[in-house]
Each structure stands twice: as C-alpha cells, then as structure tokens.
C-alpha cells in the first residue's frame, strides 16, 4: 500500500484549483448529459406503463408461474442489494482500516449504495401480487418471517447510507454555497439549506469526523445483515439449491465483488466525462482492481463450496439440479457466467496492464453482467426441482423465459438507479472536496478559500 505517492501528486495543487476542478461537473450541462437524462427518463416512463399493465392484468404478464413463482424481479432485487453493499465496503471497511487511497472513491460508492438499495425496495413492491396491501407488513407483521427482517434491515441500511452520504457532504455543500456564486437560484437555496450553516470551525470538523466514524461502525453490521437476510429468503426453505448453510457469506462475498466492479465502471465514466484524472489516478484504479480480484477470489472459494460438495454427494434432487446447471438446459448460461464473470476477470486482473482504466472497466462490465445473471441462476432453476414431479400443467409452467413486460420494468429500475446517480452529480461534487483538500495539505479551507 503506497499511500504517499497518491497524496504527493495532489499536494502541489492549489485549493482554488481543487475547488474549481471538482465543482466543474456541477456547473456545466453538456448536450451529452441532456441526451443521457432524456434516455433514462424514457426508459422509466416505459417501465411505468408496463407496470400499469401488470397491475391491471396481474403478475401473469410475467413469465412467472406456480413452479417458478419467483423470477427476474427477485433476482434483480438480490442483485441491487448486492451492489449496495459496496457503500459499506469502501466507506466503512476500507476507511476504518486506514486505507487512505479510498478517499476519492467513497462518495461514488455511497451514492451507488443509496440508489441501489432504494430501488431494491421498490423492486420488491413490483414483485408483490397486492402492492396496495404493503401496509399489512406493519398492521399484521409477523416477525417470524424473514421478509420482516429484510424490510427492517433494508430500511435501516437505506437510512444509515443516506446519513453516511450526507455527513461528509456538508463541508462540500458549504464550499458550493460560498464559491459557486453564479449558481441558479434554486441551487443556491438547496446549498443554503443543506449546508446547515457550516462554518468549518475546528470544533465542527471534530464533531463531523466523529459522527462519520460512528456511522461507519454502525453501517458494517447492518450491511452484513441486509445481504445475509436476503440470502435467508432462500436458505430458510427446504428446497434443493437453496437449502444451504453458507448462503449468508456466499451472498456477501458475491456482493462485494459486484459492488467493486460497479464502482470501477462509475469511476471510469466520471473520469472521462468530468475530467477528474488529476484526482482519480491510475493508482486508484489499480487499487480498485486489486480489491476486485480479492473479492472475486473469496467469491470463487464460496462457489467451490456451494457447488462441488453437493455434486460430490449426489443426493437425488441436488443431482438433478446440478446436472441441469453443469451440463443441462442452463449449462451455457451457468458456465458463461462462471467463466466470463469470474474466472477470466480474476486471471486478467492479475496483469498490471489490465489494471488500467479502460481494460478494467470492460472487465468490470463483464463482472456486473455476470453478477446479475448469477442471481437469476441462484433464484430460478432451483424452483424447477421440487420434491414431486411437475405434472398436469401447461407447457409454459415448465420453463421460465422472461417477458418483455418484466424486462421493461426491470430496465426501468436500473434507469432509476442511474438517474439518481446522474442527478446527484449535477448537484453535488462526486469527489469529496474537503477531504482531498485536507489530504493535499490545505487544512483551512474556509480561510484559504476567501483570500
């Protein structure tokens, strides 16, 4: 870990330069950005129309039927929860263990976490047959059900993540309030309110750092809890393929891997679109790539445990399920995901040349797509291996081929995640200005800034 070399490169930078560089993305609104936002909004509208149709007609508009009664929505929910874990990995685990290089990546991972977990909650509502009765969870909630645990921890995680996103943002909002003088009126108002009268006194910083630390400690058990509980939605059943004792750590490991890859993709595009190369250095990419390798190796280890041991024992239902994955109907998908989404990325990222922005971004795209498909593989095929044979039902009950409606709705939730991140970047600095300034030796932002 070579922290000094990272910090040295930014030390020579003047505070004015830092502020101007990092607030630049907020001040410009290039045409590309407008097209991007319009595209996202259109996808969301299409999703809303599809959802309206689903509400009216019933969940039968999806490919889900009585045997595969959970499908793309649930898999997608697991994926979103997984991606959201990266917030706690980067902001809490790395920072608390003194990994200084992670500073510029914290806010990127935290906004990904907030957006993903918020949409995870929404995806669950999309999957409900009676969303209008969601309130029953509070009126008639039974705490013996893992769903209640999930609702509790997902909400808690969302709240803590928002706080952990907001707290380090306060000094930066104050900087925007003081330095972004030609901001539109509404933005000025937002900055005025949200900066909470920040003055940047030593005492304020002390309080802020202390609160951030407390939240960092708090978020770790909650982050572990949300994905462990999510895995229990499956592991709490008696079904082959789900009836596993390692589902908790297996899911958490996979989550860190997917999240790290998501952050790398975000880093690449922020770097390219917002000219942050001076701050998101090759070194940061290199460290993130190493983090991705580490998390992938842990995930590989759990994969070996999860698939190889049941395959060795060959209990009848396990055998049917695993044969379907290894050499049957789902084998192409299964092996593509394992090879292109895990084995090859691990090997490639061992080479230094691959740990540069463009190659690792492409690798990360494969990892993220693989992670999404892996969730489908975990959720769907196992349901076609119940204890009794599937008989006397129409042909489409034997397969799961997602319909256009559910693909459109799922895409809309992805678009919402991206829209939240995009709008956030239009309003707030995506890199933590004050933390970077402090690490570059500018300790008194407020005084220096006014000179």
């Amino acid at each position: 870990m070579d922290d000094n070399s990272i910090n040295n490169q930014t030390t020579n930078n003047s505070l004015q330069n830092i502020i101007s560089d990092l607030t630049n993305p907020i001040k410009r609104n290039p045409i590309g950005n407008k097209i991007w936002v319009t595209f996202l909004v259109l996808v969301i509208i299409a999703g809303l129309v599809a959802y309206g149709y689903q509400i009216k007609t019933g969940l039968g508009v999806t490919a889900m039927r009585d045997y595969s009664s959970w499908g793309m929505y649930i898999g997608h929910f697991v994926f979103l929860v997984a991606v959201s874990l990266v917030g706690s990995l980067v902001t809490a685990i790395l920072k608390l263990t003194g990994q200084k290089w992670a500073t510029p990546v914290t806010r990127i991972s935290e906004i990904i976490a907030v957006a993903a977990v918020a949409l995870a909650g929404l995806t669950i509502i999309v999957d409900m047959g009676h969303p209008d009765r969601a309130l029953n969870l509070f009126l008639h909630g039974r705490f013996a059900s893992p769903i209640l645990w999930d609702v509790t921890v997902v909400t808690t995680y969302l709240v803590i993540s928002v706080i952990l996103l907001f707290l380090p943002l306060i000094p930066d909002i104050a900087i925007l309030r003081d330095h972004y003088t030609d901001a539109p009126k509404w933005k000025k108002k937002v900055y005025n309110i949200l900066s909470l009268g920040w003055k940047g006194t030593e005492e304020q910083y002390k309080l802020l750092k202390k609160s951030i630390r407390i939240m960092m400690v708090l978020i770790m058990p909650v982050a572990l809890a949300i994905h462990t509980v999510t895995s229990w939605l499956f592991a709490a059943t008696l079904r082959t393929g789900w009836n596993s004792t390692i589902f908790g750590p297996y899911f958490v490991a996979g989550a860190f891997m997917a999240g790290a890859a998501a952050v790398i993709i975000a880093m690449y595009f922020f770097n390219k679109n917002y000219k942050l190369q001076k701050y998101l250095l090759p070194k940061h990419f290199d460290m993130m790539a190493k983090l991705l390798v580490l998390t992938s190796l842990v995930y590989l280890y759990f994969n070996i445990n999860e698939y190889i041991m049941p395959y060795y024992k060959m209990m009848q239902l396990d055998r049917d399920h695993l044969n379907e994955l290894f050499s049957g109907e789902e084998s192409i998908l299964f092996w593509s995901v394992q090879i292109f989404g895990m084995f090859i990325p691990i090997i490639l990222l061992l080479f230094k040349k691959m740990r540069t922005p463009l190659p690792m971004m492409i690798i990360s795209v494969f990892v993220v797509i693989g992670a999404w498909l892996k969730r489908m593989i975990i959720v769907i095929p196992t349901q076609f291996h119940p204890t009794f044979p599937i008989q006397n039902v129409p042909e489409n009950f034997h397969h799961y081929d997602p319909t256009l409606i559910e693909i459109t709705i799922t895409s809309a939730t992805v678009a919402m995640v991206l829209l939240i991140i995009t709008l956030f970047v239009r309003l707030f600095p995506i890199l933590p200005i004050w933390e970077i300034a402090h690490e570059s030796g500018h300790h008194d932002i407020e005084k220096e800034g006014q000179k």
Partner: protein
Amino acid sequence: MSTKEENNNPRRKFLKTLGLAAGAVSGAGMLSSFTSETENEKVKVLSQDGQLVEVDAKSLKIANNPDKGIELTELQKRGREGIPGKKWVMVIDLSRCQNARKCMEACQTAHELRPEQHHINVLRMQDTKQTAPYYMPKPCYHCDNPPCTKVCPVNATFKRQDGIVLIDNERCIGCRFCVAACPYSARMFQWFEPEMTEEEKMRTYDIELNVPQKKGTITKCLFSADRLREGKLPYCVSACPNGVYYFGDRNEDAVTNGTTGETVRFSELIRDNAGYTYHEELGTKPQVYYLPPKDRRVPYKAPENQS
C-alpha cells in the same frame, strides 16, 4: 351491484326469492348481510307459500351463490379459529387409485379454479426403474410443522386448531414466499383475474372456501373446511368413485371412506397397511397419510392425453 337494476330484472328477482327461502330455512341469523346501497330499502318478494311480502333489501341474496349470508367478519373469525376439538386427517389408498380424476374435477368446481390449478393433483409416480408406476393424489398435507405459514410476513396463511392450513385472500400481499417454502408444491398463485361475472365477484369472501378467488393472492387446498363445518366430507373425498380416500378426526381415531361410507379406526388402518407420509425427513409432519400401492385392484394404465 345496484338494487335498482335488480328490481328491473324479473328473473333475478325470482332468484332472490329463492335465496330468501333458502336463507329462511337455514335460520334467521343467517339473513344478516348483503350488499345494498341504502340501509332500509324494502323490496317486495314472493314467499314460499305464495304470499307477497316486503323485506329488507339488505337481507336478500342470490340463490346460486355459495355465499352463506354470513358477514365477512364472522366468516373470517370462525375461519381462523377452526372447529374446536377436531384434528382432521386424510388417508389415501394408493392401491385403489385409477386416475379417475373425479377428485380433481370436484375440487376445481368447488373452488372455481382454472384447469391448470390443482388444489389436489393426481401424479404419475415411479419410485425406481424396477418398481411399478402408480397414481398418487397429492393435496396439501396440512403439515403440523408447516414451512409455509412460518415464512408468511403478514399472517395471511396460518394453521388452525383443527389442523387445517388456510390462506386469507383478504390479507395476502402476494409475495409468494409460502410457494417457495412449501416442499410439496401445494400452493398456487392467481396470476390473472379469476374468471367470474361482476355479480359473482360481489359475493362475500369465504376464507374456508377461498371463493371468490382473488387476483394477486395465493390459493391452496383447504381440506374443504366449509364442508367440514357442515359435517360433510371434503369435495374430493366424496367425489372419488374408487374408494381411495379416507377422511376423519384423529382425536376420534376414526376415518370414513368417501366412496363406501365405511368408518374404520385410523390407527389400525395405518398400522395394518404400513401407512406412511411423504418426506418425513423434512420434519414437516404431514397430516395426509398414504397406504402403499401394493396388490393393486386394477393394473396401472398409462394415461391418455393427459399432459
């Protein structure tokens, strides 16, 4: 439905009269509720002995309606409580099943299910390559340690004191966790709007019958809880032409064959015929027992045109 419309339709009025008569026979207490816009509106109807009488519009009901004229809250309450002192049990004699499927038909009719929905499903089974194939009717096992009710987040599905596992379609949020949790595939979901007329949709929901079925919720075998309340055997049990089913009360240690009407000791029947339950290793404690498919009355016939 509006009362005005009904008054203009003589046939419907006649049906109402019949309903009133039926209601009167089954006791005044049952004439408590029906849908009406105004509370004290009076309607003229013919009584059973040919007299024109005026009755409260509220007390009218349609004759071909399984609606028992009991208020929803009462149906829900007694449905959740169950029948005190009973512990229902079913025994299925696999040696007698010939795949007649009368049980499936009777069940689908009573619960207004689509052709692909099976509260009870007759499966073609073959345990190993060497053993003979046989037919196996599979209802819900009404487990004593039900994995499905455990995971329900809103207590919509529950186990009653008489052992029946029911689903409340008025409360179910449609998360389908119970479908995932049931190892016996005993649960179905209403993926679409169930097919019925507007009028049928207005019937009071009976939790012991799951009728009217509701879109976006679960439906499952109920051991015909509504029939048990009337002292009758379940729909499937009485529909069987081949004497496959025994049904009864474990507390009385007596089960009755739905075809022959013969009542035998449950414990003896199970002991003498090596009765068993499926997948006991899962710890679910099913309350549906099977008698092995040995010495079959008729040879196994491969099904025709049954997918």
